[in-house]
């Protein structure tokens, strides 16, 4: 089977019912996506399928074939970090860091649909992701900072183009 992750094709071999999580981690060697609960409760395993945030621990491999999968390893452009990753560093968001790939992937999907989310929007979008280290307030700050940064760069782009 061919699985397309972060714009790269991976030849994988597993029972089609295997959760995508384990295929990404063990066969594609992309270990940034984490196992936390296996039942869709914690969000540590969040990846995007055609731009939509999904829990890879509950997504069977067969549902992911022919889709564009994006993981935490795939959101930077080359060496330039994504605005969310940059904001995460500036706000010193992570503690143990284990949940953060999932947090960033959920936040990434949020910003794709909502360029300037309110506190409530953020609460709604992010409450499927548990952080046992309690970094919630910094995650929120990070999302707002990234949103502002993205808005700024897109205006600059428009201005440059105009």
């Amino acid at each position: 089977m061919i699985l397309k992750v972060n714009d790269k094709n991976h030849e994988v071999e597993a029972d089609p019912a295997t959760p995508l999580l384990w295929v990404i981690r063990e066969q594609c060697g992309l270990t940034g996506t984490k196992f936390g609960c296996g039942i869709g409760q914690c969000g540590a395993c969040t990846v995007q399928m055609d731009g939509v945030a999904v829990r890879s621990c509950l997504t069977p491999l067969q549902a992911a074939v022919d889709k564009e999968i994006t993981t935490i390893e795939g959101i930077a452009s080359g060496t330039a970090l994504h605005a969310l990753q940059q904001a995460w560093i500036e706000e010193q968001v992570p503690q143990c860091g284990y949940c953060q790939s999932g947090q960033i992937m959920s936040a990434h999907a949020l910003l794709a649909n909502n360029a300037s989310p309110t506190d409530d929007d953020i609460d709604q979008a992010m409450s499927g992701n548990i952080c046992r280290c309690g970094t919630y307030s910094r995650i929120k700050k990070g999302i707002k900072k990234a949103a502002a940064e993205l808005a700024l760069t897109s205006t600059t782009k428009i201005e440059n183009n105009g």
Partner: protein
Amino acid sequence: MGKWTRRAFITTGVLTGGALVLGVAIRPGNRARKVKGMIAGEGETVMNIWLKIALDNTITVIVPHAEMGQGTHTTLPMMLADEMDADWNKVHMMEAPGNKEYANYALAKGFTIGDKDFPSFLIDTVDGVYLTITKQMGLQMTGGSSSVRFTGNLAMRIAGAAAKAVLLQAAADRWEVPLEELEAKNSYITHPASNRSEPFISFAPQAVELSQPAKPKLKTPEEFTLMGTSLTRFDVPAKVDGSAGFGIDVSLPEMKYAAIKAAPVFGAKLKTVDDSEIVNMRGVHKIVRLDNAVAVVADGYWIAKTALDKVKVTFEETGNETVDQKGIYAQYVRDMEASLAGGDEEKDINKGDAEAALKNSGQVVEGEYRVPYLAHATMEPMNCTAHVTADQCEIWVGCQNPLGFANSIAELLHMEPDQVQVHNQYLGGGFGRRFVDDVALQAVHIAKEADCPVKLIWSREEDMRHDFYREANISRFKAALDSEGKILAWNNQYLFKHEPPEAPHIPYDVANQSIHYAMSETHVPWGYWRSVDSSMHGFFTESFIDELAHHAKKDPFEFRRDQLSNAPRFLKVLELAAEKADWGAALPENWGRGISLHQCFGTIVAQVVEVEVLEDGVKVHRVVCAADPGFAFHPDGFEAQMESGIIYGLTAALYGEITIDQGAVVQSNFHDYQMVRMDESPKIETYIINSGHYPGGAGEPSTPGIAPALTNAIFNATGLRIRELPVKNHTLRPSEKILG
């Protein structure tokens, strides 16, 4: 010596050493030569066991603690670099190898003696003793809020200052100028008078031959340049792009994956295993029978897990199959009463005459409080990768105690500890859980039988049901108030004692105190849980104090404030929290405000919580946290730890509950062991007091105070006194004051 515990250690330490020390990190003997092979790269000079200098003048600080999000890998190098006057932009960090030369005796001293001073003529002897003990105990652990307090203050700072001292001496010798005319700055030594300046490395080879002072002069806080600032953490970048290597991410050639199922009833042994359904399953490599568990080794984790689900297992009976939570509480009550009647309790504090005062007082208040078992639920489930050959064992794991792990694995395999290598990885949360070597021993056992490298991963269910739990407990109080509403006598009985020993103590002026405890063993395994005993005593004592304030018809803040005449540090912290929280200002309807004050691992924390009681529960809006850690070496990191500890404690207060039924844990995953999520997470404000006292911890001290501040706020809003956690088990009614 078998498995160490911090408590066992303290006893040994006190018995052997007699008493206390300050200082001395590089003694006894400069172990630089011994560790060179372990840590030095090409051309690097190892100054002492905690630091080396490379040819390009970069300095690497060796940190003997795991990084689990508390910032240790940054704060400890800062402490060393500051004392050394090193150029921070050229400082690197390296985690110490799990080797007995890195047995961290600064910790041993710290745990035994804290901040006491010690006559210098005894230091050599005492340090020798400590080093021997620490090596024996395999003490290289991360926990007890200890890294900055003990390793930082008793090792890193001294190592940095001592290295600087010999570098300066080497420069003075070479340039033949008086020592006082030299300056160290940004990893250079300068002689302004002659306009000479050279990097540290050019003096390192000579400097390392000089004997480093055991008690070098340390900077005063006014002289700090790095300590007390919030430098960005070394570990953060790898945690935003998925590259940080946690234990669960390890990959080795030829590695297989294992899933495991242990006996649901603690202590039960494996009886029968029927693996007929999976013996021929594709991808299944081996079925391993352990003493109390069965494991499947396969080509992938999912194969292992699904195969394991098809194995039929039975376990021997232990006699604990009928134990349930109600029975445990009934046993607790029986044991408390029996030991009270029998007079065979342990005394904790006994001053004045509490009994007489209670008898003669006009107003006696009583209260009984309960807390449930709690699991750690680290975000990263337990896991360990092991590779065992005939004469060597290597493991890859995120752990809080690498030397302890190496020792117990050596014992299991009948090897010498030197034959076991522990490769410590980032920890996806520790909170005390990763002190315990259970998963590592399983992985080693399985890998040995499977005859290939094996990564063992626990399911979340396994993790929840085979933890080492914060114990359920009961605390009973009886107090007398005098005619002015002050506490005249305080009688408190509780169960069990671990640490910190002062967890049940109160800072208030109470002349007559009797604090005592009983024991009541169960088969449920106990473990260190963030803030340990303080996680319950904070709730017990600060709730009961609130009840007393209510009975004395006093404001809860003023009631506390007016009885702190012997505890000025506590008073300041309490007043700061009240001031920042605008204590006394009017609140909307159905809102309430609660306060708490508690000291834990050397840091005093006061919290004010604002809640709103709704039809379907309680909303925590705001937490104001004031803390006196003595000195916050990394203020932003300290603040992050306060926030983290509060969310951890809030989760426990609102939802945390592990119950025992039929001898086993009922809860299994995050749907029935609920966590506070972003939409429930309050606004937290932290205010720090740098009082100049000996540094206290950061990772644990904010956890104990959140539960009582929360339940006191609920009392303030509703009149309902919550005497048993978690809050979710109580029905809260807005706008209906029931006076309790």
